[in-house]
């Protein structure tokens, strides 16, 4: 059994389910509302698959206006709404409750405008992250945030989670690349926030919406900043015989004035899994860094030389820089298949706590000690340049008690991240997974003001009400909302 509690479903709403479904069906085009358990099964969980629950119904609108219609009906019946994109959240952000309606923006798939003169693209938010860049390919531009799930995840989910990726070190995360949104408030009002200009002058409501985990509004359109593609990019691979030295190398590279596009780290557990399943020729050592630089051929050669000098001082067991496309692919291959390879080893829990880069060696050491304490193996593969860790805790879901043990270990790691000056989550969001740890990072007042803001946007607490804030902390807010 799993350990994260959800509130008891509201009996009144369960009893009214037939009327709610009928009202939604009446108001929306045929095929928009599904409630057959066979069909809603696909929506009963996200990528945090240990937690599942079918909703009352799933609404699949094709326009912003349809989202608004659905939202208005849900407000009329006081039904909780779970916004959903592609359902790749690792934090349970898109997990329904039995008394909720899922509004999924996945069918809002239009590319509305590409403007290379003003450097933006406007899309409906059901488009996938990768398809945005694909759309821009011919124009010589791309959309920078690149979560590893980019083939599947949608811009809606990216905005809600403020997602990042390997290239964030240079280009920033979603919030740094988002210029405007069109969204639906809980009373069905459609609102434009920001737009194709470089600041709005007023309060930064756009910045507040980004990363709000579907707590404030349903986002249906987005204006995204686009960036010219670099002339070329090339990775290098550096192997070290200690995690500490690899960490030191990261800090020295950044200190030297270079900002590579990506610095990825893999430890020995991860390297062994990759070796077994992905057939790469990575060196056998304690830690491998993949560092990617970009620019013209001359710029690339110059940066590789500087990084080689820095690495050489730390006596790497191997330094390899790519000379062509094939070698680049070979260097990235293992990293890209790391999650898949880890999956072959068994079940895993993927955390994403972030720590100050200078605390990486200490944090890695403590994670290792905790691994012995809990008797569970852990692999570390992460974005090292910005301290965004991804410890993967390996466990066997079929062994009684192991999920609980893995979750307890994970919670200890996240507490450790906060203790060394970092945070609970660098890119996956709080969702339900880290909900109950929020009090570790934030005081009662820190959380109260965030919930006050939710009150401003969602006075009835209908959007994702049981997430982000610990249940006991949000209880008074949810009670007050349901009484009014």
């Amino acid at each position, binding site marked *: 059994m799993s350990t994260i509690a959800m509130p008891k479903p509201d009996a009144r709403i369960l009893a009214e389910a037939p009327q709610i479904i009928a009202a939604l069906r009446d108001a929306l085009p045929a095929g928009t509302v599904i409630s057959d358990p066979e069909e809603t099964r696909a929506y009963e969980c996200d990528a945090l698959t240990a937690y599942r629950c079918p909703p009352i119904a799933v609404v699949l609108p094709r326009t912003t206006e349809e989202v608004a219609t659905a939202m208005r009906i849900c407000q009329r019946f006081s039904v909780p709404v779970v916004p959903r994109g592609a359902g790749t959240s690792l934090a349970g952000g898109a997990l329904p409750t039995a008394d909720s309606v899922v509004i999924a923006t996945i069918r809002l798939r239009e590319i509305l405008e590409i403007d290379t*003169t*003003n*450097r933006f693209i406007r899309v409906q938010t059901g488009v996938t992250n990768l398809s945005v860049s694909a759309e821009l390919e011919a124009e010589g531009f791309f959309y920078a945030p690149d979560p590893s799930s980019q083939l599947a995840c949608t811009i809606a989910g990216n905005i809600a*989670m*403020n997602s990042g990726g390997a290239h*964030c070190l240079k280009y*920033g*995360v979603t*919030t*740094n690349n988002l210029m405007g949104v069109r969204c639906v408030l809980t009373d069905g009002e459609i609102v*434009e*926030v920001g737009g*194709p*200009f*470089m*600041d709005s*002058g*007023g*309060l*930064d409501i756009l*910045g*507040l919406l980004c*990363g*709000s985990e579907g707590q404030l509004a349903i986002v249906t359109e987005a204006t995204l900043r686009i960036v*010219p593609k*670099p002339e070329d990019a090339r990775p290098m691979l550096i192997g070290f015989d200690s995690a500490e030295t690899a960490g030191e190398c990261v*800090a020295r590279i950044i200190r030297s*004035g*270079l*900002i590579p596009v990506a610095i990825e780290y893999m430890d020995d557990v991860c390297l062994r899994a990759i070796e077994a399943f992905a057939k790469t020729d990575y060196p056998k050592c304690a830690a491998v860094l993949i560092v990617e630089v970009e*620019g*013209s051929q*001359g*710029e690339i050669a*110059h940066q590789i030389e500087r990084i080689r000098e820095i690495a050489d001082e730390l006596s790497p067991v191997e330094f390899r820089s790519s000379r062509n496309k094939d070698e680049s692919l070979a260097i990235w291959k293992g990293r890209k298949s790391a999650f898949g390879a880890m999956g072959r080893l068994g079940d895993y829990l993927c955390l994403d706590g*972030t720590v*100050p*880069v200078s605390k990486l060696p200490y944090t890695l050491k403590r994670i290792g000690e905790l691994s012995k304490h809990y008797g569970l193996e852990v692999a570390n593969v992460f974005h090292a340049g*910005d*301290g*965004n860790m991804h410890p993967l805790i390996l466990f066997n879901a079929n062994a009684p008690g192991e999920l609980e043990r893995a979750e307890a270990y994970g919670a200890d790691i996240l507490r450790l991240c906060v203790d060394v*000056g970092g*945070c609970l*989550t*660098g*890119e*996956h969001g*709080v969702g339900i997974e880290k909900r109950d740890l*929020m009090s570790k*990072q934030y*005081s009662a*007042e*820190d959380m*109260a*003001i*965030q919930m006050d*803001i*939710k009150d*401003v*946007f969602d006075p009835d607490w209908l959007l994702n009400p049981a997430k982000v804030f610990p249940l006991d902390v949000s209880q008074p807010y949810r009670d007050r909302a349901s009484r009014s």
Partner: protein
Amino acid sequence: MNPNSKINGPTEVFSPNDDAELSAFLADSYARGIPLRIAGGGTRLDLGALNAQQTLTSRALTGIVTYEPGALTLIARAGTPLEEVEQTLAEEGQALAFEPMDHRGLLGSSGVPTIGGVVAANVSGPRRLQAGACRDHLLGVRFVDGSGRKIKNGGRVMKNVTGLDLSKLMCGSFGTLGVLTEVALKTLPRAERQLTLVFSKVSLQEACTIFASALATPYEVSGAVYHQESAWLRVEGFAQQAAYRADRLKALFRENQIDVIADEESRALWRDFKNVEVFAQSSEPLWRILIKPSEAPALARSLQLLGGDVFIDWGGGLVWYCGSAQSAEVRSAASAGRAVLIRQGARPASDRFPEDAGAISRLSAALRKTFDPAGILNPKLMGD
């Protein structure tokens, strides 16, 4: 409360020494409904029309708390002079990439700009178009809200999606949501070399076309400004990198007559651009207008018809207008963008910020009420 924190002047000034003093002071002002003018550097902010009996300054909240060049992070108390921050970074070859401007020339003021003021005003210079605004480099804040609650949000790490992002909201809220006590910022390496391409005898329309082509190249153009028939493009990087980038751009615009300015001379030029020195000698009202870059030429034409001069930054995305036109006329000409009044001049007081549309205005007002229930922080500066 420390009795020395009270300084007597024309209006009473209070300078808390820490979070606890600030929180007690704000809780008391909240309970008694006393409107406050929130100041960073103190003397310089010309908020004449502000209906406030007391001034609350961050001048005693100074000092760099942590600076880790290897982690690209700096944490400073809000009243720390910007100059101290910039100097500390320069010693390690780093800088604030968003290039905050110094308003003293424009405003004829003489106080000390603070890092908290920079954050509160989301002050971002020419490099904003390539590196992002102040808000993009802000990692976390500590502040006290209008009822005395001590709040922290974000942190000191580069990636953080834990809970709602209040740091962004505080950035650019001009002291209307709370008083900042500490800010954490991302720092970046200062470029080894800087080169500026100077285009002469170009119209604004031509300049905007040049900007759009230059900004579509991979050469990371980090500045694009225009004033009176000249346009300037800036490239930066390691020595060879900057040279390569400048060469490629020269080749791209080979039809144009281009001069190149390097390093110290170039840096001095961009310091003036950043501070909008061209309008420092004037005392006419000064507007800062955010707009879609391709609409800059049309906007500039209609503003010039009203009399006065324009200076264009951010490749067209930011239009500075200095002229005596009525506020209503300026706002109407700039209706496609967002016009903020930076310098009142001799004009009678008018709203500094544009009015927001329906829902945004309602949400903004509700947010202000949440953070400042008694309406005591810079009352009416950004709207009701």
